[in-house]
């Protein structure tokens, strides 16, 4: 098995604005099962970061445990990274983010890592509107531990074990909407034309951005009867809109039919362009989003695309009015003002 990637790349591939080619955003060769949806999501992350000309050192990737949580090894080798324990990615990200608000935080998790052991952490990160991109690589099972049903497995879905799931699945996007997440999107690992701009938009969004990405587990949950298989997802996928992300400095060229289009301006001046496929939905109106989700679900459809965005999102740092200076830029006296200062604070609380 190959364990090294060739360093050659296509000679006509252009460098981006910061002088990197796409290969500069890659990681080492994946050890996931061949055909795993997670690898495609890694590919989409690489593509998105290359396209927005991100300087790799400006991003931190954090993850928990699971096949999905292993993926940060397979992209952005030149960025910061922290592979934490099962379900604890949100608290590690919170800590890192509090210490330095100037990085882009990309949390990678699985449906097991998020919807079971990490559920408590997940909901609080949303509640705090922590400025991060939170990608759930959602395969409806615990891939790494050989495919047990996870909490997002749909009722009645049958995995490779042949057992029908007796429980209702947790809809992470619906839950995030309920908890007040400021950016909620759903996508499919096999649809890069949607996923890549969605990752770009999520990175520009100031606040918590959930991307619930259906990602077939090719080994344990890709049989015909599974609702998270390639074939099932392809047959039932429906999207809220055609989607495009336009960075700040670029003129908008897309021309959608009047009435069907929506444009959402992000905090940094970049724009999300949507050509709506469902007229009774408005991306900045949470209620229509919730309705569309329920509607699609009852029709047996998987609704993808941008579901909701709050353009007025205020992240945790602005809520708490934290220091603009990162801890690593402060000197010792700032970081440890001494026992006198502590005494003063204690006195103030008496």
């Amino acid at each position, binding site marked *: 098995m190959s364990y090294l990637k060739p360093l050659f790349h296509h000679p006509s591939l252009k460098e981006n604005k910061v002088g990197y080619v796409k290969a500069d955003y890659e990681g080492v060769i994946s050890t996931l099962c061949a055909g795993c949806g997670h690898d*495609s999501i890694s590919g989409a992350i690489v593509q998105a970061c290359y396209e927005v000309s991100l300087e790799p050192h400006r991003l931190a990737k954090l993850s928990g445990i699971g096949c999905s949580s292993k993926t940060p090894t397979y992209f952005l080798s030149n960025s910061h990274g922290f592979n934490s324990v099962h379900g604890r990615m949100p608290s590690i990200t919170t800590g890192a983010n509090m210490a330095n608000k100037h990085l882009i935080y990309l949390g990678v998790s699985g449906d097991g890592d998020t919807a079971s052991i990490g559920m408590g952490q997940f909901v609080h990160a949303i509640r705090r509107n922590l400025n991060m991109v939170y990608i759930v690589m959602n395969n409806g099972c615990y891939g790494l531990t050989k495919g047990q049903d996870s909490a997002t497995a749909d009722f009645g879905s049958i995995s490779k074990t042949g057992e029908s799931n007796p429980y209702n699945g947790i809809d992470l996007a619906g839950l995030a909407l309920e908890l007040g997440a400021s950016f909620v999107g759903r996508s499919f690992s096999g649809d890069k034309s949607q996923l890549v701009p969605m990752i770009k938009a999520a990175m520009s969004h100031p606040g918590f951005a959930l991307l619930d990405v259906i990602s077939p587990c090719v080994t344990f949950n890709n049989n015909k009867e599974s609702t998270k298989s390639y074939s099932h997802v392809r047959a039932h996928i429906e999207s809220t809109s055609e989607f495009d992300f336009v960075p700040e400095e670029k003129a908008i060229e897309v021309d959608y039919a009047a009435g069907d289009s929506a444009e959402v301006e992000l905090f940094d001046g970049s724009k999300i362009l949507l050509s709506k496929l469902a007229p009774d939905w408005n991306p900045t109106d949470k209620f229509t989003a919730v309705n569309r989700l329920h509607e699609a679900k009852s029709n047996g459809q998987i609704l993808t695309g941008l579901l909701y965005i709050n353009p007025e999102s205020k992240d945790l740092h602005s809520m708490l009015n934290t220091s603009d200076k990162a801890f690593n830029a402060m000197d010792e006296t700032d970081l440890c003002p001494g026992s006198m200062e502590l005494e003063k604070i204690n006195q103030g609380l008496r």
Partner: protein
Amino acid sequence: MNPTNTKDPEYFHKVVDCQYACPAHTPVPEYIRLIAAERYTDAFMINWESNVFPGILGRTCDRPCEPACRRGRVEEEPVAICRLKRVAADNKGEVKHLMPQAPFPMNGKKIALIGGGPASLTVARDLAPLGYELHLFDEWIKGGGMMRTQIPAFRLPESVLDEEVNYILDMGIHTHFNTFVDSMKEVLSKDYDAIFVGTGAPKGRELKIPGYEEAKDNIHIGIEYLADVAFEHRDKIGKNVIVLGGGNTAMDCCRTSKRIGGETVTVVVRSPRKDMKASPWEIEDAELEDIPILNNMPPKEFVVENGKLTGVIFGKVRAEYDENGKRSLIPTGEPDEFIPADDVIIAIGQDNAFPWIERDLGIEFGKWDIPVLDKTTFQSTLPNVFFGGDAAFGPENVITAVAHGHQAAVSIHHFCQGIPVTERLPPFTNLTSQKMGIHEWTYDNGIAHDLRYKVSHEEKKKSLANRKVEVELGFSEIEGFKEAQRCLNCDVQTVFTTSLCIECDACVDVCPTDCITFTANGEEEELRKRLTVPAMNTTQDLYVSDVLPTTRVMIKDEDVCLHCGLCSERCPTAAWDMQKYMYNVTKVYQKDGEKVCC
């Protein structure tokens, strides 16, 4: 686009860029892998079957394969294919017992081969095992043609030449050396069933500018000069030598002169450097021997004083090209330049010449005295006379002469057996999976990033002192191994099975050179622009699948595929498989399924 027909033997053949470019279609990656495996004898035999002269070509081939090599499209330099061939020849073991063993039962047919160069020798090798009585005529004392008379010993040692020529002559060929054939009519009157003309392009061009007649004694025609030196009829030249011409003959003439008394040797070319016909490596080697090459200087006059040549006057020009790329040399107006010389060697081209073929025999000649031939069969307008090598379409090189020889041998055999000569032998092809385990391949699919290794040279002082000292030392075994590892194994094909693909995109994501795209089908021109990386090199094909369940098709641009096998390793369903494609030009003695080596 229509789905690619991979059953067409030429489709995958074209992907093996080097083999496709080789006139004899030598299975290059196959022998390179054998070199890496230290199986030098097998590597030699693969070459011997295809190109007949591995040790000679491993030193002197014009290497049309190298500019074609895929490696040159993903990094600076192609694989040193030619010099690897020499590694096989240098390190091989006993090979003679692996060749067809004479004596062969005779088939009663008798063939005359006129000229003893690589073209005739190839015909001889291919026909001998079939029992033909072969009579080879050459004006010189030994076989080899221009490989012996022209290619200097410091590039090709006589021992190597003798060895490889003798493998053929030892197959029971009747040789008639020191025999210049001066009448085709006479040959035709003998009882030959067929005649092959492999007499090369033996006439060096002259340059009759003012002063020529007076200076004649010190003006030499390049190919005659080289032959004289080769046969030791000449062992001296003046101290100041001018070589006129910008081709490989000029390079051999100047380097030879340096070795037999020339102290100041200058090559003067009338055209710009980039239009010079000499191979870049030949120019480099001449310059390494401190021979200046002056460009844009057409000769105007041989200057003679007291009846003796003293030098040459040159004009100064620059090249201009019209919209069709046609060149004209425009005088710059600068004053002429005089360069002193004791001897001048003219190496400005060769022509075909057939003074010995009477024009009333039914053998038609066209423009420039070139015979009228069928391009595939090499048959002339007189059905029992065939041509090949430089004699066929003008001066080329050894490997082209060999390729002609193989095809002419097929024609001659068919002609003698009453089979239409237009009936050709289909190539031998074979496509087999290289899978050995779940992610294991029979070939080393890791990509080596090493830059091209340089062949080391003999110390200059030593090699200039003796014209028989070989300049290139060849790769050592270790260097050969490392250079062999640079080969991308382009014969190991990516083979796609549409019905197995689940469109998971794994191959698209992993491919280091972005070769693969899943998209809606379309017309080729428009489709090429729409791929992950637009496929602008139209000399390379697109591999198009059948329609997939999502109605898309898989398109693979063959252009810069590294044959790394990652697509196959990451494919969950083995829709991609790495399969080795063997393509061999069938030689006439292999016609009835005789083993094709390895």
